[in-house]
């Protein structure tokens, strides 16, 4: 029975696993919960198990262990009910080449709606307009560019006004303009749709996602709201670039009660410090003053370290933790 309408969790997996003959494990015990109206970024290198997870959710493949529920429906047993509520865009979307964009949308829409015909056609027109394909609506999609196919993909995925959009690498094959368009459409749709999308483009995830899961080798290695993930170890870190002789300044800084660590790396004509602190206000007020009090160093730059998702991702994938 569905819990749709009551539950804030749209996708829930418990120990979801997929293995193939020969002992290849594509997914190992995935536990996931995706909140309603979130943009959930599903990150991982190639072969991490992202597409396998999506196929399991859509009922295109069967799990070898564990289960997944979407809107409270079991992904295997109630696959029809699940697919009624989902719009899906494949990594390399393929459609019937002899159809036009309008025919493709009409074909898709008829799985979800029975009519009336004028309203259906109006809905198709609006959808074509939304993705900027109105002028190509009656051209066979055989001649469509990659970007046009992707826009058609987004159109067919959301023509049913789905409660959940599952997008597999939606911007991977697009140029920067196309990527921007896709991200804008995603941001526009979030008010009434939950978006679950896989990608390896970290910049996109950081720009639009509110929750991120990182998958590697079929295993979930991190899942957190994006802000929390970017906060890394939980300590705020300052990045300081110095010239001169920093030894005595470093001893003084390391001795401050709210300084957790000072990591020094060589930089051009000087050194860089990563200073992790446990008390942000104290550090804002006192860290730079403490360093400047030492005449033997010159401060070239100073500021809070803003972590990029790439730092976090690389650290997690390589087995470390975000600095």
């Amino acid at each position, binding site marked *: 029975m569905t819990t749709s309408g009551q539950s804030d969790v749209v996708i829930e997996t418990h120990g979801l696993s997929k293995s193939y003959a020969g002992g290849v494990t594509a997914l190992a015990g995935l536990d996931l919960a995706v909140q309603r109206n979130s943009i959930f970024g599903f990150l991982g290198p190639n072969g991490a198990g992202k597409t396998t997870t999506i196929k399991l959710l859509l009922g295109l493949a069967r799990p070898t262990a564990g289960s997944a529920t979407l809107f409270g429906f079991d992904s295997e047993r109630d696959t029809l009910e699940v697919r*009624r509520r989902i719009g899906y865009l494949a990594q390399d979307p393929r459609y019937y080449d002899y159809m036009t964009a309008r025919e493709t949308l009409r074909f898709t829409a008829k799985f*979800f*709606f029975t009519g009336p015909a004028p309203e259906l056609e109006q809905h198709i027109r609006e959808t074509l307009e939304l993705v900027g394909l109105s002028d190509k609506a009656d051209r066979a999609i055989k001649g469509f560019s990659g970007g046009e196919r992707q826009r058609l993909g987004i159109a067919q995925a959301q023509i049913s006004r789905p409660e959940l959009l599952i997008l597999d690498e939606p911007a991977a094959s697009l140029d920067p303009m196309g990527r921007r368009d896709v991200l804008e459409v995603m941001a526009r749709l979030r008010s009434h749709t939950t978006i679950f999308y896989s990608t390896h483009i970290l910049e996109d995830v950081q720009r639009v996602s509110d929750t991120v899961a990182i998958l590697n080798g079929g295993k979930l290695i991190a899942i957190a709201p994006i802000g929390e993930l970017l906060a890394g170890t939980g300590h705020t870190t300052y990045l300081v670039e110095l010239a001169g002789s920093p030894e005595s300044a470093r001893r003084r800084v390391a001795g401050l009660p709210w300084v957790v660590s000072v990591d020094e790396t060589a930089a051009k004509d000087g050194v860089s410090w990563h200073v992790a602190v446990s008390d942000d206000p104290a550090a804002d007020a006192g860290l730079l003053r403490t360093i400047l009090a030492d005449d033997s160093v010159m401060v070239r730059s100073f500021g809070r370290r803003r972590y990029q998702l790439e730092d976090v991702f690389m650290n997690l994938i390589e087995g470390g933790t975000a600095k």
Partner: protein
Amino acid sequence: MSLIASKAAGWSTGFGNLLDKELGSWWRTRRWLVHLLLWLGVITGFILLVSLESRGESTPARGLDEVMNIFFQAGGFFSLVGAVLVTQGAIVGERSYGTAAWVLTKPTTRKAFVLSKFVGITGTFLLLSLVIPAVATLIVCQVVWGLLPGLAHFGEAVGILALHQTFYIALTLMLGTLFPTRGPVGGLALGFWVAGNILPNFVPQWVTIAMPWSLARAASAIALWQPVGVPLWIPATVTAVLIVVMLLVALWRFEREEF
């Protein structure tokens, strides 16, 4: 007025839409025209040429026999090969190109997917490769030889041949769910036809009589008012049962397919 959400449930969910798409791939493109011209050219065109050639040397009755012979023997064979070629990519092609995976993320069933192909291909292909050329052949008979075969016999023979071709469509469709590429699908389907020509030398006669192979020979005999030689209900029933069994195998196998 707002859009009305589909409430369909059960195995047939999406069947109508898929069948409409399947028929559209013929009738909303030029594919129907290409096939129509091909089958009219290969079957009726050939019959017309032979008829015109032999008109001065043959009696109308013998000419009519010759026409029936060509239609059911040669025409039947070409139409069978065409049926296999048309059907061999129906499942395999969609699976390898990715459209099957796309369609199956929509609210429809795998049973509807397979059966829409069977119904769409069978209906359209038999119309284009058998029914229309049959009508055109009757016109040739009337125009060139001035007489028509017994229409009830002719209709019965066309029906028997249609059952025979339907068997090969079902066989090819089933093989498409079992093999990943077109090669074994088309090869095994045509191999089955070849086996029908070889096996009578090696197996008891009742085996070949009961199998679909005897339908093609029976169709020709019925049209020519010749004795069929076997109780027709036996191969007809066996063939119909085999068609159902092959479709069930196809549905069972496709239900387990992973994309």
